[in-house]
């Protein structure tokens, strides 16, 4: 049973990053790391230890769902676990994006926006 989470609370950064990276197709951990690096142009990275801990927690909270590996998956190494985003995950990502957008607007209004240069 998914663990309860406070809908209004801010998402932990790593959770938000995973939700941004995972997209619609099921992905395994290392694919999520690669996708996130691609999204950020290699400026940011996810580390394997905390990533897998985050994936487990997100699955427990209902933001992700563990699914069977795709039929074409052939690997000589260990069996990988695949995760797919859930509707709750999508909703949480949207809510977090709105929260951050609102914060960004405040920052812009205060002259702390990304486009301004410090004097």
């Amino acid at each position, binding site marked *: 049973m998914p663990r309860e989470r406070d809908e209004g609370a801010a998402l932990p950064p790593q959770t938000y990053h995973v939700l941004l990276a995972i997209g619609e197709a099921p992905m*395994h*951990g*290392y694919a999520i*790391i690669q996708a996130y690096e691609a999204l950020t142009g290699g400026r940011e*990275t996810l*580390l*394997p*230890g*905390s*990533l*897998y*801990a985050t994936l*487990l927690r997100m699955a427990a909270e209902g933001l992700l769902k563990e699914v069977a590996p795709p039929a074409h998956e052939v690997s000589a*190494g*260990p*069996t*990988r*676990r695949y995760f797919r985003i859930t509707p709750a995950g999508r909703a949480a990502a949207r809510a977090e994006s709105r929260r951050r957008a609102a914060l960004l607007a405040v920052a812009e209004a205060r002259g702390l926006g990304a486009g301004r240069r410090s004097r």
Partner: protein
Amino acid sequence: MTAWCRAFDAAMRLWPSDLRHSLGAEVRLAFEQGYRSRLVRHGRRAARTFAARAVVDAAVAGLEQRARRVSRPGVGVVLDVFRRDAVSAWRRIGRARAASLAIVALMALGVGANAAVYSTLAALRRPPALPAVEDLVLPRVSIASGAASPVDRLWSYAKLVELRTAAVFANVDGYARRFGTISRPGPAESVAVEYVTAGFFRTLGLEPAAGRFFLQAEEGESHPPDVAVLSHRAWIGRLGGREDAVGQTVEFEGRSVRVVGIAPAGFEGLSGGIQMWLPIGQSRITLGAWAMTERHLHWFHAIARLRPGATLAAATAQLEAITLASEAIDARLRADQRAVSSLPRLVDAFTPPSARRSMQIGLAAAVLLFAVVILNIATLFAIRAWRDARQVAVHVALGASRWTIARARFIEATMIVVPGAMAGLALAQVVLDALRGWWFDFLLRGAAGDLLLVSADSFRLDRGVVILGMALAMLAASAATATPLLRQSRGDLHSVLRERSGPGRRRRGWLGTITAAQAALTVALLVTGALLVQSLVLLTGEQRGFDSERLLIARYSLTRATAVRSDAGVRGVHDALRTRLSRLPQIASVSLATTAPLSGSFIPTQIEQLPGAAPLSPAERPPLHVHFVDYAYFATIGARLLQGRSFLRHEDSSAEPIVILSQTAAARYLRTGDPIGQQLRFRMNGADPGQWWRVVGVADDILFGPAAGGMRPEAFLPLGVWAPPALAIIARTTIEPMAAVPAVRAALREVDPAVPMGTVTTGDAMRAQGTAGTRLLAALLGAFAAIAALVTLTTVWVTTVEAIVERRREIGVRLALGGSTARVARVLQRTVSMPLIAGALLGLAAAAWASPQLDPVLFGVGPRDGVTYAIAAGGLVLAGLAASWIPARRIATIAPSSILRQS
């Protein structure tokens, strides 16, 4: 990459095991892929940075996963509280880094010393692993005469047979430790063997690992078969563990003996380190015809198993009755002599009492040291707590409970004491390994004589002592920290903040008591350490009678020599060998003799008639320890002749009855007139039974046996009287002695290729072995005393500094009013001088009370030597005063205005 993978795996071990099993491989794969992709795209440095971050990240994630598993309500909160306490304790430790490191080092020394010494003692007390070992007893007889210490007497075969008639014993058997050379298969080697009666192994409850033990028929036959049982170690080492070892032959002392069985693994005889057992009947061949037939020749020990239901008291009573009857048959005891029987259990006597005594003394010293360390730790923690008094008062005012304060301090104590104990554990392991290698093989084996049922494998570190030490230190640290803080927390913030920082009367009293207690313990340790060190100095000094430097000692036996058929043949081989050796450039001088100094052996005889006196009855005959030596003996070993002359070259081959006595023998037996020219009568191999021996010289005392017994009456006879088939080559070399061994071996081979060389050692090694027991105790107690003194001086210094902090304002006023620097310094010193002197006196009293226990291990110095006591106590007090003078003098030289401003 491999190292980073290992580090990552180590970090993954922090994960809960189920997650590690289900996810670990995939996480590890992601790590490897991430590392490789960075290596390819960005280079080695980026890959290393990624790997380091990933390892730390995996460890933290694992710990978080574990924390989530703690589902009981409140546990997470408690963990969080402890985490915060730990962080704040870590900051406090960081602020007082030097004191914290000092406590860790003290803990390591205190715990390490105690754990190592206690573990050694525990190994000596662990009962041997033999079936129903509590039923095994050691029948012993000693001859007591007046107030003199009883002299142990062993068993002859005839008396052992009489002992077997006792109904209380299920079995009675005998064993004797001897040395001999095994020369095939494998290299020639001098080994320890035991001659045993047929039921020896059965009595001990042992089963052979292969083959059989001895048969009853093999025990007392007039021509016993040449059979032997090999130890498990010898079977592996010499026969390569061959399955067909039973039935193989081994060459021992020039004879072929057939292996009939292999002893179980781990059993190496009752006297320890045995490689082979031989039936006691074979002693006729190797030891002489008398060995089994002579009723009065006592040469082996007895071991017996009590019959089920028999009590020790009943068995002792029967042993006494048999001993009395046996002595009545002998009719050899004087009117003032009596035979005393005893029947110790094997479990109470399987290690030498001297070894246990040494370790008990060492443990007592280690406990004293630990007490000093604990007191010092308590002082350091208490001072830290006093200095935090204001901070605690503020915390209390802000709502912190006393429990919160005590808990935080407890965690701080744990964070210092536990690493100290862990370091102590590591130190103890190092010391124990050293003791196992050096003390056991080198010292215990030498001191054990004929009973040693301890193996080096039993020296295991006792972790219980470490835990106990850690608990005691925690208790002391927590009490010393929490008590003043809790007292502070009762007062109101206002009064605490207004209070000038300083100990106050109660604190001064506490510090004084601690200083006195430490001084008392330290003086007791210093006295014992100094007594032992003095013993060692005397023992290694001039008192051993010979010069050990560059002295080589190598034994050889002519029992297999093909050329030897007669006394003349034996002499011929000895002479040829000496001639060859004396021509070697590596050898400055060489001597052949039956015994080397400190070898522990001699040929026993008794003086039958003294000059100008009537013949002595058998019971009155005093002992004489005989050594056959050649003309070069005294010059080669560097012994001094006090009177008369040494032997002359031609006396090595003439049977002239002359003797050189040691100083002790001459003083004891020739009390009147010049000893030179006087004559003694005693029996000796190669001479007529009624032979008189003329004294031609008196030599300075030379120590041949253990130091504890002091000097014994020694007599030296020329090789011309009797040329024994086994001798020791004693050579003063021109190079490092062991480097001359190949040349000596080659010379022996040239004389007769069939003669194997036995044990080889050096004078320095023998001297070292002879002093090893005292050296160990002197090193242990000396080191403990030095550490205790250093720790006590630290307390004195800290106490003085505290007094300065407390009385800063008073000092400033005194100096401002014209008080002299020296006077102010003296006032401050008084804080520590009285406790120091009181403690030193208490320590002297304690040392005087306990010192008789040291008597058996001292040499040349009494246990209550006044000078030693005075130097130990006086030295500590003076050093303490010097330690307190430094800070006292320093504060007294600062300008009073500056002091007052600071206060």
